[in-house]
């Protein structure tokens, strides 16, 4: 059984009866594929990401991860398979120390203490933040917070990484480090971003969203080279 692909099948979502944010989104990410999700503000990118691990349930359509349809029953397994990194690391980091924060996910998975400790070490090592393990998240710089936020998700050893604006608000060096870090992951990844340069560097494929629908889906180079399309989609 592989959990490494994810299918959004005709996803509709309404925040209120008159406000439909997602209007029939269909897309599939295959094993190991890195896909950029771009679109103007309010296009529905973040809302779609929240569907990836069941934080929002579609009003119509379904999410399939591997061979499992996302339901209440499969939710815990799917949340382990799909790691979601939020846009603002301050929303993600809430424990007193980096180490405790990174161990929060694995601890919720009822793993043994040794296994949790190993995962925390591996995750912090992967993002180059092992030396920050005893620091308080509040004392970290923006770039460090972002790396630790990614570690909190990596520690759960997900098959699929879903990231919301991983390069937003970072200084140029931290942004370069972030891009190199994400490039080094072998995970299937869906990355919502406004950073089109990063999309080009990381993702061979791009999906452009417009008003809750997929406006275009194809090779990044081709889509981002189409200025009429970008203009039409508010990019």
């Amino acid at each position, binding site marked *: 059984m592989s959990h490494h692909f994810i299918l959004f099948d005709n996803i509709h979502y309404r925040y209120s009866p008159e406000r439909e944010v997602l209007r029939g989104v269909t897309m599939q990410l295959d094993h190991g594929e890195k896909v950029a999700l771009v679109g103007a503000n309010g296009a529905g990118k973040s809302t779609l990401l*929240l569907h990836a*691990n069941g*934080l929002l349930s579609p009003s119509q359509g379904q999410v399939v991860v591997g061979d499992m349809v996302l339901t209440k029953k499969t939710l*815990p397994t799917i*949340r*382990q398979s799909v*790691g*979601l990194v*939020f846009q*603002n690391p301050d*929303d*993600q980091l*809430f*424990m*007193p*120390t980096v*180490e*405790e924060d990174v*161990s*929060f*996910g694995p*601890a*919720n*998975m*009822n793993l043994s*203490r040794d296994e*949790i*400790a190993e995962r*925390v070490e591996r995750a912090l090592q992967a993002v180059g933040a092992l030396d920050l393990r005893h620091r*308080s998240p*509040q004392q970290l710089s923006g770039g460090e917070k972002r790396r630790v936020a990614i570690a*909190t*998700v990596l520690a*759960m050893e997900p098959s699929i990484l879903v990231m919301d604006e991983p390069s937003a608000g970072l200084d140029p060096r931290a942004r370069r480090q972030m891009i190199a870090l994400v490039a080094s992951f072998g995970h299937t990844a869906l990355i919502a971003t406004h950073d089109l340069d990063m999309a080009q560097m990381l993702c061979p494929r791009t999906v452009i969203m417009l008003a809750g629908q997929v406006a275009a889906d194809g090779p990044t180079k081709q889509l981002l080279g189409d200025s009429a399309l970008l203009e039409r989609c508010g990019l």
Partner: protein
Amino acid sequence: MSDGLQRLLVRLSALERATPNHSTIDPRARIVVTLVYLIVMLSVPITRLSELLLYALFPIICAADVGIRYRPILQQSLVIVPFAALIGVFNIFYHREAAFAIGGVIITRGWLEFGSIIVRALLSVQALLLLVRIEGYNPLCRNLQRLGVPAMLATQLIMLYRYIFVLAEQLLSLTRARASRSFNRRAMPVSEWGSIVGQLTVRTIERAERISLAMAARGFEGRMPAPTTPPRRWLWRDTIYVAMWSIALIASRVLYPVERLVQLFETL
């Protein structure tokens, strides 16, 4: 206001973790001793103010024991005085009979009780502040859980503490945004207060929702997972620590040492 909030946030985050090298005593032992102290101290009859003052030694000794300065604890505990005064002020009007006189000034029973309520409040807050300073808020909640407090309650306590940060951070950004455009106009009209409180409510709820989503994404289902570091084992010295303090505190309550000392001086 934003300076004060910023300082509050820094102080709060310092309270989160245990004081480094704080002690060799199990946190549960300190919780039990603090509980014994509170029960004993609060059970001193309300008019025996002199006996009560003896208990001011407990926070001073505990602070010295772990190398924490007592003065900041004392200063922080003063925040309770207005609330305690509100509770105690009625005693001044109810009990007007004289209790004793100092150099011709008659002290009524009401004033004695008022003083007693203030001292009790101060000492209680100091003991709790010290406990939090020594053990750290989060480890303290974990140890309360190990002492039998329901996991749900311990989780609520931890979350409540996090919510103070969410609230203070949002208030900080709102007051800074206002200050940057209010050109030193300090007074805030009621209409602005209304909109700030409304904004604050909406923003904190939204932020809390995002945090809660991030927690749910990492498998949180309503209960904080058990700590990943192995819990400290209860040792003999913890038993001795609890026994020694309990004996000392209960003896000080039962034997009225201050009263006996005064009597001794009087007979001499």
